[in-house]
């Protein structure tokens, strides 16, 4: 079976990749932080009591500084900021990952189609990509979330619809590089069709780099989500970190100098974005031989 051999080879390559990744201290550090945060987000319903999120069940005083059993103080309705932070991570990470998945899906398809088919298809798609690349994406995302029915789904769509061009350009240039190699020509000569060339040769070669690029997109999507929430376009029923900051500003946490309410969500966003960036840079260093030599 040739496919068994191929799989063994791919597993071996993945193992080598992991060994190289482990030698990048920054990347490993970022990965550990991400793992902890994702774990906390997943375990939030187990380690905390969600009834504390209900305004009517809030036990603390309004906007109280840390102490008194509230490690990070309370919000304007007396809910624990720590609890909100933990539950907010679920929404922020969900939006980040979902928007990235959608964005990478669109970007990969457009990029491969551009490079593979060339000609007028490429000319038209390239124009569209460049068009979306330079447009002010936050403005477009804001307009999209205004006209779509409010909710998390619309936010995910709005982010993905404005973030895909970077991926599309990356995939296009990588596909062009792969398809100029002799083994693709050999594959054509042996009678391969479009599906075979794209599915068996182009995708496996292109996807690792897309993956490295993706890590940056997750962070960016989380920032965009928080900005949309800040502009008042978030989903009030699912409090993300951005929605927390939006509420904090609305109830005057800035003038009250309620640092315990303002700092944690922003720091959480920054830490997640930085951690994704560290992972991405380490992955890129491993996958891009030109960077490795330096």
């Amino acid at each position, binding site marked *: 079976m040739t496919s068994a051999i191929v799989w063994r080879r791919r597993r071996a390559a993945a193992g080598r990749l992991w060994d190289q990744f482990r030698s990048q201290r920054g990347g490993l550090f970022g990965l550990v932080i991400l793992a902890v945060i994702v774990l906390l987000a997943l375990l939030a319903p187990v380690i905390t009591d969600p009834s504390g999120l209900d305004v009517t069940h809030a036990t603390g005083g309004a906007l109280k500084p840390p102490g008194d059993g509230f490690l990070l103080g309370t919000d304007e309705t007396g809910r624990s900021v720590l609890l909100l932070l933990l539950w907010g991570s679920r929404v922020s990470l969900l939006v980040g990952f979902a928007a990235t998945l959608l964005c990478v899906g669109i970007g990969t398809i457009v990029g491969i189609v551009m490079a593979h088919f060339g000609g007028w298809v490429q000319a038209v798609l390239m124009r569209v990509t460049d068009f979306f690349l330079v447009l*002010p994406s936050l*403005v477009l995302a804001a307009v999209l979330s205004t*006209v779509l029915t409010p909710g998390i789904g619309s936010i995910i769509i709005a982010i993905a619809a404005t973030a895909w061009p970077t991926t599309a350009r990356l995939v296009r240039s990588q596909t062009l590089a792969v398809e100029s190699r002799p083994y693709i020509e050999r594959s054509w000569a042996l009678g391969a069709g479009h599906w075979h060339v794209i599915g068996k040769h182009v995708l496996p070669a292109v996807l690792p780099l897309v993956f490295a690029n993706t890590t940056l997109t997750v962070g960016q999507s989380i*920032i965009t989500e928080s900005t949309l929430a800040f502009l008042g376009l978030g989903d009030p029923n699912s409090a993300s970190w951005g929605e927390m900051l939006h509420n*904090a500003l609305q109830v005057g946490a800035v003038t009250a*100098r309620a640092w315990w309410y*303002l700092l944690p969500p922003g720091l959480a966003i920054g830490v997640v974005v930085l951690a994704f960036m560290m992972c991405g840079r380490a992955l890129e260093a491993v996958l891009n031989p030109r960077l490795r030599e330096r």
Partner: protein
Amino acid sequence: MTTPATAPELAEPGTAARAGGARYVLGKVGGAVVSLFVVVVLGFFLFRVLPGDPIRLMSRNTSVGTKQVAELRHQFGLDKPLPAQFADYVVALAHGDLGVSLKFSRPVSDLILQALWPTLLLVGVATLISILLGLWQGTRAGWRRGTGFDRFSTGTALALWSAPTFWLGMIFLVVLGSWFPTQGIVDPDTPAGFLPQFLDVLHHLTLPCLTLVAVLYAQYLLVMRSSVVEEMDADYLTTARAKGLRDDVVRSRHAVPNALLPTVTLIFINLGFVVGGAVSVEAVYSWPGLGLLLYQSIADHDGPLLQGLLLVLAGAVLVMNLIGDLLLRVIDPRVRAA
């Protein structure tokens, strides 16, 4: 973001190159015109075809009877077929008419013109400072790669870049709010006359500008740094050093001019990102520019104003990109050859 350039060939001077130049300029201008038209179409259809009907959008928070809805539809010409609506819209646009704001009951174009200068001031000053700061630190960091300065400046820039813009603004407000005005562009009781007015605007500009610079300069730093690192091993730098030139001269006269080129492209590609940052900053500091107008139009479900702002902001970015493309061709011979 930018794909690596293919092997550069030097341009043969002569008529062929000049004809190629005309075709290049025409192609870029034509592309920009098509893009502008697409923005117009996008602006039209986003507000009419997507599930959110404009009337429903503006009456989302109020209860409106069916008769009123019908009246409003007629008033905005929404009872006509789509192609007729589009024709009306394009004709009005050609006359500079962007419709009337629902909230302010004033022409959208007036509101936008009024808010244009504060935004230009804020974005212009912040971009200039970011570019200077980013290029300076990027050059030094790249030239002494791996040193403490490199690690510190790159780390700081990345950390600031990772924070949401509006959050950074809120933190600056909490920390520095007692020394600087927290909103607006000028106090009403500032005496008339150029100097007091100028100083007051400067005072108001400090915090918004600081926030915008903090978020923007990382990109220039990173691109300049990697660009300088690329040039480090180039043969012409070895030649310059072999001539016995001082390290500073090799850097500033030989390496930096070449390393600057990718940054010029970035300045223009990034304008969309700058606009996004300006929206957040203006909303936090109530800076009376286009960003604050956008923030208000979203809060008030002011469809015509939002549509006008989308057109103006996207159009401005497209035009600036065209200028950037043409400018790059003038300063980089390798682009002229391609």
